């Protein structure tokens, strides 16, 4: 039986990939970046962050680069970059559709 493909990215997953676009970093730095970038709107819980990092590493969207004591650092892979760009395109399409709808029916 083929393995199930990665589920559609949730908001938290999308922002984790976005964080790693900035380069190699550890999970905590990624969580801090996300909180800053979203103005505190998106705060990742530690269990959520740990699950996402583990899932992305398993799916080869991230690659572990360094282990220092209890901290592990990662960098985004080509596959991770592609997943991010695909999700970004999807979100842009959603926004475009919403703007068109607003134009056609006068909703703001």
């Amino acid at each position, binding site marked *: 039986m083929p393995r199930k493909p990665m589920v559609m990215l*949730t*908001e938290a997953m999308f922002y984790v990939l976005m964080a790693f676009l900035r380069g190699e970093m550890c999970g905590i730095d990624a*969580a801090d970046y996300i909180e800053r970038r979203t103005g505190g709107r998106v705060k990742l*819980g530690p*269990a959520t962050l*740990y699950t*996402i990092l583990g899932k992305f590493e398993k799916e080869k969207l991230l690659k572990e680069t360094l282990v220092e004591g209890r901290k592990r650092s990662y960098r985004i892979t080509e596959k991770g970059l592609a997943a991010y760009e695909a999700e970004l395109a999807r979100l842009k399409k959603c926004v475009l559709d919403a703007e068109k709808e607003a134009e056609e029916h006068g909703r703001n």
Partner: protein
Amino acid sequence: MAGIDMTARRTYRLPPCPAYDVEGMEHWLEGMAEQGWFLAEDGFFFGVAAFERGEPKRVKYRLAAARKPGGVFSDNMGAPDAEQLELSSRYDWEYLDRRGEFHIYRCPDPEARELNTDPEVEALALNAVKKRRRTALVLQIYWPLYLILINRGGVVLAAIHLKTWVFLLVMILLLWQAAAVFRELKYLRRFQRSLRGEAEAPPRRSPAAYFAGKWTPVVLWLLLSAVLLHTLGVLLDKSGRAALSRYEGAIPFATMADIAGGEVLDYAPGMMMGTDFNTVAEHRDWLAPRCLDYKESADVTTTVRRLSGALIADWYECRSPGVARLLAKDFRRYAWSPFRKRYAPLELPELPVDYAAAWADTAHLATVVLQKGDQVLRATFSQWGPEEKLTLDQWAGVLAESME
């Protein structure tokens, strides 16, 4: 412990819900905290939770699905890995212990960031747990099958030798455990779907139903272990066997003297030191109310012949001819199970019984199993010495004729 003032007093409680009832566990632990009892670090031991006294306050307890298996053979005894501990401590979540497939965390600040902030990701984390429980379910189903098919080759034979009530109880307990794992899987699946917004939260059992479901089999297993130990002691104790010369009951099948034929002129029991030859043991079971375990070794001289040899016989008076037939077939099935490679079936003539089979084993000794009505006889007969040997047809025929 950060943020919580502890004193030395401890108390112990049984959790009112299973480990996989995430919300139930969290509510219970938070309720205990509001009464001033806080789960101790490494607070779970054999299903009992240890709490330490502190100032009653609102704290948050949360469960997180364990990514890796637990148990004594696992890495780090199934505790979270270093990265997970680093991430959780950064946001004031303290790891306490693992119960089942979940890690338990506590945060002293009720307003602090949640441990899980994305329900879809929390649902994703349950996949590893479900996979491990599916493996556990397969193993749980394997053991009852093993007991029946591999261990003794047949249900009736296994039941009589273990004692039918013991066999049934073991089967019930094994199937009960399998049902418990199945229930857990069903709950986890529903919980996962509820996290994704696809279903309502799974219904929860009352504490009374949970206690009964969890602790009844534990008590029964303990009782069963005690009974099995006692049974093992009885089996190893040969003083329960009676010498053939002093046995007062009737032997309901042909003995060596009968096999030799004619009138007995001389009978000398064989001298086989350190064995239980020339003894008989009687036992009973619900499926076979009378059973004899018979071992005879002798030099017999009759008016017909001289015979030196040994007869090992197991005789059963079963509850019904149907049970007797099943038992006879189980004996044959056990003889040629795939784990006993040296087996050769032997031909028998037409005998005055309902069922007959014969085979030779590793030592080229012939064994027969005969069933007539509600009786079953399994017998192995060996001969030695210079005298002419009886054929299988001859001695099997004598045994068959002797069965009423």
